[in-house]
């Protein structure tokens, strides 16, 4: 919770300073954020590659458990594709890129605003990045608030799939509380796998 507040705070502080027009031009228009993004992707990659639990997790996975992250990804992408017919502003691939954030709002919004800049231009890329930030924050909030309801209507796996990439940290407590403690391993495994899929899927859909 504290982490989410800091993240939203950083965004709001930047928005305020940008709005007040107090900053030097190189920071507003320059390529600074692109290079910072490269640095971030290198770190994220190192984090994935050096994770000691990665091999252990990959070996302990039984096929049945993979169905849970698969359900999350399939369900999210299918329904994001459907809603793209309602939202005229954004194309199918752009809606899929936002959906592929799976509640990992910080990374997905940054990736989208950077990767869409060459094709959409700064204006629309920042707009789509903002949509991605809000949409994925909403998704985390839905999971935190709706977990008990989701379990009742859609079964015990529901809050795990709804939580997307956050089910090994921020939404884990509500999941174990309402879906049962025995699902803690599935929830963590699901969170890790969906989390790893975010940079790949978001870049893929930004490319289409």
């Amino acid at each position: 919770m504290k982490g989410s507040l800091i993240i939203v705070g950083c965004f709001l502080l930047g928005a305020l300073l940008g709005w007040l027009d107090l900053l030097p031009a190189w920071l507003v228009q320059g390529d600074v954020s692109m290079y910072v993004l490269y640095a971030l992707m290198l770190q994220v990659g190192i984090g994935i590659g050096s994770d000691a639990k990665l091999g252990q997790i990959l070996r302990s996975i039984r096929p049945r458990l993979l169905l849970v992250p698969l359900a999350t990804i399939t369900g999210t992408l299918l329904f994001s594709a459907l809603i793209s017919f309602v939202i005229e502003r954004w194309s199918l691939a752009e809606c899929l890129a936002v959906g592929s954030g799976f509640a990992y709002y910080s990374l997905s919004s940054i990736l989208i605003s950077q990767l869409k800049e060459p094709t959409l231009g700064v204006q629309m890329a920042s707009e789509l990045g903002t949509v991605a930030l809000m949409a994925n924050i909403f998704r985390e909030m839905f999971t935190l608030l709706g977990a008990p309801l989701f379990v009742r209507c859609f079964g015990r796996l529901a809050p795990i799939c709804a939580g997307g990439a956050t089910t090994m940290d921020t939404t884990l407590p509500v999941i174990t509380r309402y879906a049962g403690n025995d699902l803690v391993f599935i929830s963590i495994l699901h969170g890790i796998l969906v989390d790893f899929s975010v940079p790949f899927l978001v870049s893929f859909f930004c490319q289409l």
Partner: protein
Amino acid sequence: MFTVISILFTGVFIGYITRRFPFWAKINRPITYTIYLLLFLLGISVGHNPQIMDNLGTLGLQAFLLAAAGTLGSLCFAWLVYRLFFQRKKGAEE
């Protein structure tokens, strides 16, 4: 675009071959700070952009629709997977 993906894979490769280096265990800390910095920079470009600031309501509605659709889609498939592969097995054990 390809740059980002290849940097990511380079990172995975470097991380994997140097996975015994103890300092990678703390890689989440610099990642967190880099994310703070990037969101601050995204905030700047949004705040500096009057067209976004004037349309926050519209963008918020689009975000809400996308979030609701994504969540509902996952819930439906979660229900399907639970019914087909988890509930039955539980029944067989009992």
